């Protein structure tokens, strides 16, 4: 049976097998802890916890896909910076749409700075984005003067809090469309071909005429934009821009999602479906533990265990598959 599965759907099993198994376990565990975890109304609330992290995970995954040990730590700084800018502008009676565009622009600008230094000067991403993580979150604190900003008009809450037929707007109008766009960018477009080749083998990419630098650069810009969007969605949910939000812990969670989702940290390998599934795993886990009034630290610990299980399981599946191939 397993052998058959492997022969027919080897790729999919190796890629998603462990993840789907974990998702099933988490759902069963969740239902045992707090029945009706997956009732529609719970699902609606649950997704609002997953959307910001899921958005940032897409951007992070694109950066990592580009290879060369790339990573974007600065999302933990753009996540609070964008809503702080938006709140500041709206507080000065700038039109809502303009403030949102400006805040997204800050995300893009942040991504451009990262990209220019990393790709342009060829300095390792982890150092540069560590610096800009400090820089962006520090700026958020300076601009907000350290306090929470609440100068959002009521209509700003629509993105984060509104629902259509019980389905959150942020899921319907933000996460789903962006998932499709990211799927297209990362799997179907010419850019997908470029970034995957760059991630797997930059020299081969260069030789086949791919502009390696510009390909990697674009990933940082997208990541910055998505981090800013994530920050705006969250602040629209809580109608508060907190300069101390995000930070390195948020980055850790995002990287956990990306890794759990099967993105290869050395570049080139990873799928949007994997990231969506991994986002769902952490979301269901967190929500059902909350619903069961469990100590939230258990969730943190369990995430660590899941990460190890997923990595070992995936390595095991790959080995099993290779053995199977050799035996036939």
């Amino acid at each position, binding site marked *: 049976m397993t052998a058959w599965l492997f022969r027919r759907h080897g790729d999919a099993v190796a890629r998603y097998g462990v993840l789907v198994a974990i998702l099933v376990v988490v759902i069963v565990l969740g239902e045992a802890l707090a029945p009706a975890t997956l009732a529609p109304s719970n699902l609606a609330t649950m997704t609002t916890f997953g959307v910001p992290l899921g958005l940032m995970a897409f951007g992070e995954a694109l950066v990592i896909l580009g290879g060369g040990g790339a990573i974007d730590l600065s999302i933990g700084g753009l996540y609070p910076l964008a809503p702080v800018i938006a709140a500041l502008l709206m507080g000065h009676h700038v039109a809502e749409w303009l403030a949102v565009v400006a805040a997204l622009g800050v995300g893009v600008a942040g991504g451009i700075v990262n990209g220019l230094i990393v790709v342009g*000067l060829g300095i390792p991403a982890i150092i*540069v984005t560590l610096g800009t993580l400090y820089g962006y979150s520090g700026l958020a604190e*300076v601009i907000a*003067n350290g306090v929470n900003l609440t100068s959002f008009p009521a209509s700003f809450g629509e993105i984060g809090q509104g629902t259509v037929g019980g389905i959150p707007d942020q899921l319907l109008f933000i996460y789903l469309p962006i998932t499709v766009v990211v799927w297209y960018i990362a799997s179907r477009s010419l850019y997908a071909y470029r970034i995957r080749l760059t991630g797997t083998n930059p020299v081969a990419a260069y030789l086949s005429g791919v502009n390696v630098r510009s390909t990697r650069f674009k990933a940082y810009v997208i990541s910055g934009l998505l981090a800013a969007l994530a920050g705006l969605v969250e602040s629209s949910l809580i109608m508060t821009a907190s300069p101390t939000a995000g930070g390195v812990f948020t980055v850790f969670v995002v990287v956990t999602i990306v890794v759990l989702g099967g993105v290869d940290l050395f570049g080139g390998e990873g799928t949007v479906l994997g990231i969506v599934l991994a986002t769902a795993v952490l979301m269901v886990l967190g929500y059902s533990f909350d619903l069961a009034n469990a100590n939230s630290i258990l969730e943190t610990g369990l995430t660590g*265990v899941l*990460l190890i299980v997923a*990595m070992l399981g995936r390595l095991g599946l790959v080995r099993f598959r290779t053995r199977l191939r050799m035996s036939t």
Partner: protein
Amino acid sequence: MSVVTIVPSHTGLAEIGALLRRLQRNYVATLGTVEVIVVVVMALTTHGSFLRTSSLRTSFVDMAVNLGPAVGLTMVILTGGIDVSVASVVAVDASLVGLAFEHGVPFVLVLLLGLLGGALAGAMNALLIVGGKIPPIVATLATSSIWLAVSFWVLGGNWITAIPSSLSTITSISGLGPLPWSLMFVLAVTASAAYFMRQRPLGRVIYAVGNNQEAAKTSGLPVGRAKVMVYVTIGLLTGMATLLLVGQSPVVSPETGSNIFLPILAAVVVGGTSITGGRGSILGSLLGVVLVELVNDAVILYHVNPFWDDVVLGVIIVVAVVIGLGSRYTAAIGEGKL
């Protein structure tokens, strides 16, 4: 930037470029020189408050805490790895130390327990990375979550305050003038680590692994042993930092050590260690630790709005790597190494 200003104005651009390149080649020396200048400036412009014994001692204790894990992290990064679990290892190890004190375990035994706890945590990372073949960032991210949960669970919503004051006396109060014994001890450890990395065969293996793991393996070098060694070492040194930290503020809470990681990583990278492995030095990281401490001191000594703290540190990291490492990496790309 101060580098540029010391160049006479009539010098040509080409000569400035040449000077920059020379400085980049001697990055560690440049960093050291800049720090000496900064220290002199701070000593002269803060009306003596920077040099006040108690102020210096606090800075030295801070450095003693950060230096151990920074040395360990340097070794880890030299192999091309990373350890993001440092903060959580401090939390869980501090809980262990606190519980031991609370249950009246003899003082010296507690110290050993603290070191052992850190080393064991490091061994667990090594097991996952070398035995389980899990990428270092994933393995240490996972253990980081697990240890944090364990420390919350062990402490159960309380803090442990039953820390004997003799620990604080040893770690942060007694010493030679402003120089605490703890820093001298950590400096001795750092010196031995530097000697080990330069002179001992296994130290050279660590560099070799980071430069080209496959080549190191095929030439029969003990790659696995070198990797196990670096992760256990950073664990042990984090255990040492835990004891210093608990001595510095004798209360154990799950937040103990929670903000130790980023400054340490910043110190290592500003110290010139290449994140892709194979290049860097213990001495550089020592200077990195000093620089991070100077930034933190300066922000308060010059009465800067505290919110600028992070911005300043972020800008310094970026400027330091751009000036110090820019051309090196550009060259590496040219050679096809990245």
